């Protein structure tokens, strides 16, 4: 199999969400002495980029996108040790969390999975995350994006508190994207969030757009 054919097969496995074949093609690519970064960029992330395009075009919906994300995760279990060994850095780092007072995590978990699928390294702070913890995570290392989730109208205002704290405490606060059942684009605009995701896949698209713009 040629290098191009291996990478194309890997892309197809991701696009079709084939969680059996995706790691097998990563093995094949590694056996073929392809470097880990090429496999990641030209195989996995290229496949996920097609998935993102199909989602934007309305051909794929969340269930299809998530199946692809699962295939990506399966492929990453094989590729991750090689990326580490070859010292390949992620495209960007995102901190994710459900805001203070809110215990809902399924939406946030899906956002984390989709961000990984878009090439982000994800630091998951969990649920019930106070503003200080978001700020601390951004101080501890270089963070390119903060993603906040809330599922209740009563906990939504915590997003604004956290954004204010990041603006107050950090010299260069990273852009914040928000989402969750009661959250709207209007609300995001009002509290000064850089982006809003209607669902996990759109959240990852918005995140990718913001980080591409930044650099």
């Amino acid at each position, binding site marked *: 199999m040629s290098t191009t054919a291996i990478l194309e097969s890997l892309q197809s496995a991701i696009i079709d969400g084939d969680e059996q074949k995706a790691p097998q093609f990563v093995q094949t690519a590694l056996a073929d002495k392809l470097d880990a970064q090429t496999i990641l960029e030209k195989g996995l992330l290229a496949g996920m980029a097609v998935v993102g395009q199909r989602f934007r075009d309305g051909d794929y919906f969340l269930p*299809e996108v998530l199946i692809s994300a699962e295939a990506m995760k399966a492929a990453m279990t094989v590729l991750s040790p090689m990326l580490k060994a070859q010292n390949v850095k992620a495209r960007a780092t995102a901190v994710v969390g459900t805001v203070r007072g809110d215990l809902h995590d399924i939406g946030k978990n899906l956002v984390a999975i989709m961000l990984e699928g878009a090439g982000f390294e994800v630091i998951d702070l969990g649920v019930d995350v106070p503003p200080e913890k978001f700020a601390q995570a951004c101080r501890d290392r270089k963070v390119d994006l903060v993603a906040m989730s809330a599922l209740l109208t009563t906990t939504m205002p915590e997003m604004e508190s956290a954004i204010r704290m990041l603006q107050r405490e950090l010299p260069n606060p990273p852009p914040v994207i928000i989402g969750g059942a009661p959250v709207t684009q209007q609300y995001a605009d009002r509290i000064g969030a850089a982006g809003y995701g209607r669902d996990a896949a759109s959240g990852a698209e918005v995140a990718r757009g913001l980080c591409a713009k930044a650099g």
Partner: protein
Amino acid sequence: MRLNTEWALEVGDSVLCRFDALPLDRDGVRRAIGLRPSTNNGARWEKAIDELEKPLRGLARGRALIRIEPVASLQSRRLTLAHGPVIEGAVGQFLAHSQLVALFIATIGSGVERLSRRWLRNGNVVRGLVADAIASELAESAAFLAQQAVRAWALSHQMDITPRYSPGYCGMSVRQQTVLFSELPARQIGVQLSASCLMTPVKSVSGIIGIAPASQVTPEDYPCGRCDHPNCMQRRVPFESRRGSCVDWSDCGVPPPPTHETEGD
């Protein structure tokens, strides 16, 4: 569904109900995941639902606490129980005519939730999400069975019930859960309330059900049919504009409708 008359509900007493077999609405699971007939790879999701339904129903621990109390007074936004506690919200709309109310907390425990989380963490997205959706539907079932137990009691007393009304829904702050938790020994079913008034295990539901003469109430009479909030995410009846609202949604907690300002100026 057959009404369960097994539970010896009594006015003024908390009763613990155990639901051994919780029914599962598979269409509800499909809706929660966002499956459509045309979903590519839909078979993968269906397979996961098939595989997980039985074990997860086995793992779920359906429990509810129910307490029936007489009503002292019912105003549009304030319900006072005969022994003193007060519940605030759109009670006049949801619980109209109630002479008694049943307070309840229902849960399926934390087993399914934990499994779902573990699967998601390990990259098992399909199983994780299916398990979460099944758990949500089973929690709904536990609340429904609690409601059926109350209805069986009401019917046996020549009465019927109003719809279920939960803190956090339409016009009732989630903070009203503190009243329910002070009236029911939630620890008996392993449910706790956080400072922000959310329950753990997450797959739990709390609420109030009105009980009134059968000629005055039905369990399906949601006030949504009389409410004009155009972008309410809690709507159970389709929105038809300009019907003339008789429900005050100004403080219901749902974001207000967008103002039609011109953009870009």
